[in-house]
């Protein structure tokens, strides 16, 4: 496990020492979630967590788990259609929050005639285009640049599982095994199970497969990894056990 540097845990409102803030000559300082800038120069954490500083990218952010999903731009999320309005769908990203809007034309190749018909309760994999504290979030299922779906769109069949925001973030990491310490999906695939997943930053993982057994098994593996805080070695054992139980 990571012991390379001293971990720096901070609480909301703590003062961050000036030397810790990266000073890059050209790039502007990039602040990730959990930090705010108070003019003129103070950087203050707003949540409790570990302060991570990346001097090469001239960025810093807070690493923490928990809480409720707050939409942020470019996040990939799994939403549930609540109802359909004239030109858009109202999509729920987390329980009891204001719904996000998904224009009915924001799908690949959608026109007035060919737009997808989504029923109430349908799941969609979407990207957050607009997240503003004063407005409801706006989603899209098509890349504005390429006009292609790029994996986004309605999720048919399968089932969505709730996981913690921290696990969702780790699953979305480019190298989720090395950086995020989560290998459970790869391990399940290596066991010969055929399934596909979509991970939403809002703490939802969709699992699709022809076999309902597989779906439930993958979901259980994810939940147990999350709740039991399993490391890679324990995940291996878990996958072995689950697969044995199924057969």
């Amino acid at each position, binding site marked *: 496990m990571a012991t390379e540097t001293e971990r720096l845990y901070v609480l909301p*409102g703590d003062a961050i020492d000036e030397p810790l803030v990266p000073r890059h000559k050209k790039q502007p300082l990039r602040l990730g979630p959990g930090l705010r800038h*108070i*003019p003129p120069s*103070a950087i203050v954490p707003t949540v409790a967590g570990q302060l991570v500083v990346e001097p090469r990218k001239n960025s810093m952010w807070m690493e923490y788990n928990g809480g409720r999903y707050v939409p942020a731009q470019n996040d990939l999320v799994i939403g549930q259609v609540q109802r359909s309005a004239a030109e858009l769908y109202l999509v729920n990203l987390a329980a009891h929050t204001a719904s996000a809007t998904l224009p009915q034309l924001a799908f690949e190749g959608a026109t007035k005639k060919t737009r997808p018909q989504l029923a109430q309760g349908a799941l969609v994999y979407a990207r957050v285009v607009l997240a503003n504290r004063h407005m409801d979030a706006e989603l899209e299922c098509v890349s504005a640049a390429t006009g292609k779906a790029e994996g986004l769109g309605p999720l048919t069949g399968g089932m969505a599982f709730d996981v913690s925001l921290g696990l969702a973030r780790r699953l979305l990491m480019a190298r989720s095994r090395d950086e995020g310490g989560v290998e459970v999906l790869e391990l399940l695939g290596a066991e010969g199970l055929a399934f596909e997943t979509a991970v939403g930053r809002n703490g939802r993982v969709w699992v699709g497969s022809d076999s309902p057994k597989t779906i439930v098994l993958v979901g259980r593996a994810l939940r147990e990894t999350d709740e039991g805080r399993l490391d890679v070695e324990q995940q291996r054992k878990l996958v072995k056990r689950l697969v044995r139980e199924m057969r």
Partner: protein
Amino acid sequence: MAAPSLSFSRPVFAKLSPHPYLLRTLAPQPPSDAAASRTNGRAPQEARPVHIHTSSLSHAHGSALVRTGDTTVICGVRGEVLPVANIPQYRPQATQQQQDDGDERADERGGLGRGELKDYDLLVPNIELATGCAPQFLPGVPPTTLAQTLSTRVYSLLHSCRVVDPKSLRIWYTPPTEVGNNMDTEEQQRQQEEADDGDDGPQLVAYWVLYIDLLFVSLDGNPFDAAWAAVMAALRDTKLPAVRWDPDRQAAVLQNNSQPTTTTATAAAAVPGQGKNSIKTTPLPVAGLPVACTAAVFPEKKHGGESMAASAAATVGNRHWILLDPDRSEETLCGETITMVVDCSSGGGGGETRIKSIEKQGGVVLGRELIRGFAGVAEKRWKEVRDAMQ
């Protein structure tokens, strides 16, 4: 067509953006050398004058009408007899012993602990914010949080200040070996204490319960100060009728005529209204004169400035004003409030001011120094209210 004018009349400006409006009057721009004043024309630390009128309700044992600016509250105090037999958790021993010598000790000890007043609920304040006293009070809704909070605060303060001595609420009965029917309660009690030996001594048979009802006729900010002043004025005005215990009826009767007064109808039978001259009354002794003084903190930055930046940033944007006796529009703009209850009446004014309560919440501007300084403001307010009471 002329370009639309961007200047508003004062009331429009005040309605549209109350915060900048108040800020502008408090901090006039350099060219004008007007003194800092609030939108209501008062100086920041100027309270509204208090008007108190007592004995305005004919069917209460004591009452007071208090008016500060447009905040008007009326308070009525009504006494009802509560026989000890009707108190479910009554504990006779404790009280009887206290009556002999324990009382003095308890007084010296000066604890905030419970006593008869609290255990038997002898003081029952209730606050009603009348429909229409301010725009936010609608008819037919349950008591607002404000009303509930106010009544908790009044209740607590009544007990922690110990303005009413439980001794003055006790009703005694002496078995007929001693003939003391014509004496009023205090004389009776005195004699009974002298002749106190064994079981034949006086018995505590009932208590007066004081129902203290407050009604806000109109509310323009600072309800607590007005409510508390009304409670104090009404209690000082309260005169309880002299009653004697009739063991046969198990009820208290008025001293002069033998008209029975059932426990629930006591107040009705004993109101000063009918037969005022025939009924003997004794004024309720009230200890001290605590006076509440409230102020709100108006920050220059709306919704609270950055506390962290207070040291780093320049003074601009971090000023604040302490507005004494805020009115309703000021209350909506201020988050932080302080209420201090002081009593300067002990020691003939020369003694040290006793603080009875501090309630400061909702912000971080008022620190130690400002609260210390606020004690002086509260003392000044105490004198004003005392003068109004007399």
